[in-house]
């Protein structure tokens, strides 16, 4: 009994940190979302559902009695989710062959390849984003080369387009997909692939029925690692997309900044959290359903 008590005690520092650092601020955000905006930021302690009302509905600016669905907020939410989904898909598509390549190298060179994958992490995100901008801007590297070789006559507008945003996002998040995929592949039993071929399975069949089920945990981990930060990303879309449209992160930041409506910002942030957790649970249920078969 006594031993058990001691083990509990050893956990307490971690538990306290978790409780204070994770749940505490979250609780404050939740409480704030039910209060009224204060003068020049902050909140006043008047209970109000106004913030939550405003997340979903808006009063017409010019006819305050008319209430309509807040399509602007929904649009921003959808844009963030859609961008994250696309990013996750692109990363999975590019990450799989990359991880496969690394996993099939001789053991001693794998470390080198992995090392190369992690190099971008050494540099600040902002600097890397500006580097991409330098490459794709109208008089940037790519356009300069294409113009010089005569492939094009006038520069291609790549900056401030959806292409630029997806390029930036995929570049930033790709390592987060490659690393878990590699980890899964490294543990993979390659004799199963040989067995598949011995049983006259086609290449596609081997990929689909032998390899993919084995690396599925890698895909799950990678997708989560990419999707969640991507939904809150706003530096990359803002710089490469030119900030013409808002992301969820911008919308929340606006309320805490120039909008000076902290309760609305808190409600939006909380909704984003609920959505991410919801998506995670759904995803794990659907994708992780036949987990037992994997090692079968």
């Amino acid at each position: 009994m006594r031993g058990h008590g001691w083990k509990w005690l050893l956990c307490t520092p971690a538990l306290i940190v978790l409780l204070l650092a994770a749940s505490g601020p979250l609780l404050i955000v939740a409480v704030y979302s039910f209060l009224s905006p204060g003068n020049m930021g902050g909140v006043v302690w008047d209970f109000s559902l106004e913030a939550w009302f405003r997340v979903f509905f808006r009063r017409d600016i010019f006819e305050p009695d008319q209430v309509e669905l807040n399509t602007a907020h929904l649009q921003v939410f959808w844009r963030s989710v859609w961008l994250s989904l696309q990013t996750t898909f692109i990363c999975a598509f590019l990450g799989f062959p990359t991880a496969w390549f690394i996993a099939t190298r001789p053991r001693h060179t794998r470390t080198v390849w992995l090392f190369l994958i992690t190099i971008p992490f050494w540099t600040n995100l902002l600097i890397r984003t500006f580097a991409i901008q330098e490459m794709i801007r109208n008089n940037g590297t790519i356009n300069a080369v294409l113009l010089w070789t005569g492939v094009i006559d006038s520069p291609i507008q790549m900056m401030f387009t959806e292409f630029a945003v997806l390029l930036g996002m995929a570049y930033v998040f790709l390592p987060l997909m490659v690393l878990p995929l590699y980890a899964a592949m490294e543990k993979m039993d390659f004799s199963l692939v040989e067995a598949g071929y011995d049983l006259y399975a086609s290449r596609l069949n081997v990929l689909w029925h032998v390899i993919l089920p084995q690396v599925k945990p890698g895909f799950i981990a990678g997708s989560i690692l990419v999707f969640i930060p991507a939904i809150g990303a706003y530096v990359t879309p803002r710089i490469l997309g030119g900030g013409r449209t808002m992301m969820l992160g911008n919308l929340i930041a606006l309320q805490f900044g120039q909008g000076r409506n902290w309760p609305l910002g808190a409600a939006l942030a909380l909704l984003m959290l609920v959505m991410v957790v919801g998506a995670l649970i759904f995803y794990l249920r659907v994708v992780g359903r036949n987990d037992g078969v994997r090692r079968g």
Partner: protein
Amino acid sequence: MKKITGWASAALLGTTALASAEGVVNLYNWGNYTNPEILERFTAETGIEVTLTDFDSNDTALARIRQGGHGFDIVVPSDTYIDTWVSEGLFQPLDREIVTNLGNIAPQWVDVPFDPGREYTVPWAWGTTGVIVDTSVYSGDINNIELIIDPPAELQGRINVIPEMSDVMAMTIYYHGGERCTTDRDTLRAVRDSLMSAKPHWLALDYGAVDSYAAGDFAAGIYWNGASMRVRLQNDNFAYGYPATGYPIWMDNAAVLADAPNPENAMKFINFVLQPEIAALISNFARYSNGITGSEEFMDAEMRNAPEINVPAERAEAGRWGQACPQDVNDIHTQIWTELMQ
């Protein structure tokens, strides 16, 4: 060379040791805004050590000071926020026994609406928000906000607007003849409609765009005067216009906090930066005017006569102070802005 560096660091260590005896002053200012030379000179002259902490927005600064326990002596917020700072009792009045250089403030910046008679604050830097135009692309009158909200064909699709809700809203409201915080529905409707129809012609809403202008990515935009000068110095096709229908003036002001741990040192520092030579160091670093009489002669040559920094006399009249609008008006602005950016 090594020897010199050695001596220099020894000398530096010496002053540091000396400084701690005289105490410290803790400055809380915008990032990339404080010329390190000012701090060095102040320490050399008074022996008081200066620590510098950055903030990135007025809201951040206000929120942090409100919480208390910050340990800062001096803060440098913008004009629209001064009212809130003062009314919440966050500043202490300037100690006129120590701050004897108040007379150096240029007359037009003494009786400012946010601090009449300069009871609490002194100017740090000020500037304007206007229109920047590539004159090789558009050759007409550039003192016109229409270039952005109803752009001519040659500028369409090549416009960048700073994503500052207050500046963009203000200039559009002035264009439609309204006051900064008007509640007139027809005006606000016109503002919304003209912004919505202008947006398709905007290529980007970007802050850090000096390089992008100079490189020719943008041909026009709403931009700050100091940044516009930096663009012109890189590409002299660019010129800065002051919209005749009205353009925002802003000023960041230094003040001593009510709960400053070192109020006396803080007052000394405030007095120190009111000297023309020191104020010029602010401008040379931040690239904005400072509001201190006689500082021009100590400014870098390229700033002294810059049309972006020195508002032409015939354009001065259209300049207007910002104003923090009441929450219900601000909510309408946010709603229009969100609709614009959705």
